[in-house]
């Protein structure tokens, strides 16, 4: 049941607009691969081209050893889950799930057996006679998943499957999908703009931006070792500090942070600092700390988000556990340590900064 998906040099134009620009990646057999990117990055187009719903302008698609590029959508045998469920509104749950079997002329008896199996799998056994408009969003998406899985597809393609659901249901379904995938082991490709979803569910993440791939890696690599300024800004939150490269550091005002060893001396650079990599102290403990003023404190439950103004006017965001807030109050002068930063050339970082702020 595990077939890898290989996409080579895939491009897709819509008239003048180049939605996908030569994308190449592999979704490993039996794993979950996430295509992560902001809306308009071309990730859904890639998925639709793999499914055969859209034809590529150029490039090739493989599933296992079989090339799929010129096959019809029906021949590809993919399971596709749409963002807005796309259940057949005039069919009940059982008929929806059985659709892919009945169009392939599977005997009625086997259809029924498979439907029962899947209803149990998606925990909707009591709902077989309900119609889609009698189900909640989460239930509908589970039916859609069961329907996609019924004909035993070679791969499962999920297009923003939880995008239309509210936060709590999304959390539950994400965990449930994770369990389900462990059980089935079907190669899955998940399109999402939600970084938490990608980082939590996927074995590998493909970050896309403006039709191209920015980085491919494990969730850890993507988060801790972003390859481009865009990834640094898009995945996780980060403060962006403007400065110049001095001796492998980004220097701004009187201070500097590391992580710019790969950049040319003297050029403009941007340092990306994660909020949890910022330490805030009421007094100068290390002697080399940055001075800052507390501008705003917002509570995030057990964490607090502290907005700090640096002496040169730049803004830095820190997130601290509430019990480390002692002496950190509105208007107070504090000292800041930056544990880690990632530096990028200024010109690469412009778009990333826009994403990070937004």
């Amino acid at each position: 049941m595990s077939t890898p998906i290989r996409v080579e040099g895939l491009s897709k134009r819509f008239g003048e607009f180049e939605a996908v620009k030569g994308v190449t990646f592999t979704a490993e057999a039996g794993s979950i691969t996430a295509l992560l990117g902001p809306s308009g990055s071309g990730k859904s187009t890639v998925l639709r081209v793999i499914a055969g719903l859209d034809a590529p302008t150029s490039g090739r698609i493989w599933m296992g050893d079989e090339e799929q590029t010129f096959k019809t959508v029906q021949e590809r045998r993919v399971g596709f889950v749409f963002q807005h469920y796309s259940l057949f509104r005039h069919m009940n749950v059982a008929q929806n799930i059985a659709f892919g079997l009945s169009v392939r002329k599977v005997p009625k008896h086997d259809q029924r057996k498979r439907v029962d199996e899947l209803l149990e799998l998606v925990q909707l056994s009591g709902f077989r006679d309900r119609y889609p408009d009698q189900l909640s969003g989460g239930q509908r998406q589970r039916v859609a998943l069961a329907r996609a899985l019924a004909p035993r597809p070679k791969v499962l393609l999920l297009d923003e499957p939880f995008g239309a659901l509210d936060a709590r249901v999304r959390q539950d379904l994400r965990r449930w999908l994770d369990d389900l995938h462990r059980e089935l082991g079907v190669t899955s490709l998940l399109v999402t703009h939600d970084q938490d979803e990608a980082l939590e569910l996927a074995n590998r993440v493909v970050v896309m931006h403006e039709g191209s791939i920015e980085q491919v890696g494990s969730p850890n690599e993507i988060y801790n070792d972003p390859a481009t300024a865009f990834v640094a800004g898009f995945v996780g939150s980060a403060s962006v500090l403007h400065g110049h490269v001095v001796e492998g550091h980004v220097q701004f005002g009187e201070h500097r942070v590391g992580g710019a060893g790969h950049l040319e001396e003297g050029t403009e650079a941007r340092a990306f600092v994660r909020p949890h990599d910022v330490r805030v102290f009421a007094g100068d403990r290390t002697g080399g700390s940055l001075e800052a003023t507390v501008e705003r404190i917002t509570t995030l439950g057990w964490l607090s988000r502290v907005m700090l103004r640096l002496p040169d006017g730049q803004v830095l965001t820190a997130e601290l556990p509430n019990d480390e807030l002692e002496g950190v109050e509105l208007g107070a002068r504090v000292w800041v340590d930056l544990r880690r930063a990632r530096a990028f050339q200024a010109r690469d970082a412009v778009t990333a900064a826009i994403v990070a702020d937004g």
Partner: protein
Amino acid sequence: MSTELRTPRLSGSARRLLVHGGFTAIAILYVGVLVVAPLIGIAWAALRGGLSTWTATLSQPDVVHAYVLTGIITAITVVVSSVLGVVVALVVARDRFPGRSLMSAFVDLPLAVSPVIVGVMAVLLFGRGGWFEPWFSARGIQILFALPSMVLVTMFICIPFVIREVVPVLQELGVSEEEAASTLGASSWQTFLRVTLKNIRWGLLYGIALTTARAIGEIGAVLIVSGSITGKTETATLYILRAFDQNHRPGLDRPARGYRGVQAAGGEEAADMTCGGIR
């Protein structure tokens, strides 16, 4: 001031009730007077002379022929305009090609053209000297004053109904269910039958109902192309028009002369008369 404030006035809820009741009364009156009353009136008039008068009228050969003819025209029109209507609706709702909006506008044209003009257009095309006349007469096929032209003008007039009912439904549906069906292995034909057709069925049925009603009731265009020859090309509606005319307006024969003349002369001569009369 304070006394003025205390003057009794209708409370908000009472006023709402009054407005609501008023609208309901207007709606009932409007539909009742304009639709229900005439229906009751005609049913009463038909059965006034007893059931035997009614059955005797309905069993006259000319009447039976007229109803059968109306049935044939309606059946052909409904089948053709449903099938082609759905095809056109799919094209208008789904395809993007230059001239699409022009085509969408042309679909409504029959609604804007007077049926009499539709009849005249058919006569001009198929009558003596018309574009298509030589081809058909060379093969001995009678178009005018025969079933083909009657079906043709009825179909023309009924073009918009199915299309106008189905296009908005298709647009609202989008293609997502059809895409889902195709990923599940359904062929285009299976998708159409099991997904698209099921989803548009109410709109389609309503369009068919409108088409049927219009095909039965059409008079102007059919009158001109058929000549209304009793026992040959007289439909039920034309029969009723003639019967009504004879019974109720014996002195007033001017407006009726056109089709009576056609009826008397019949055939090819009638075509000249009709065309001449219109020109």
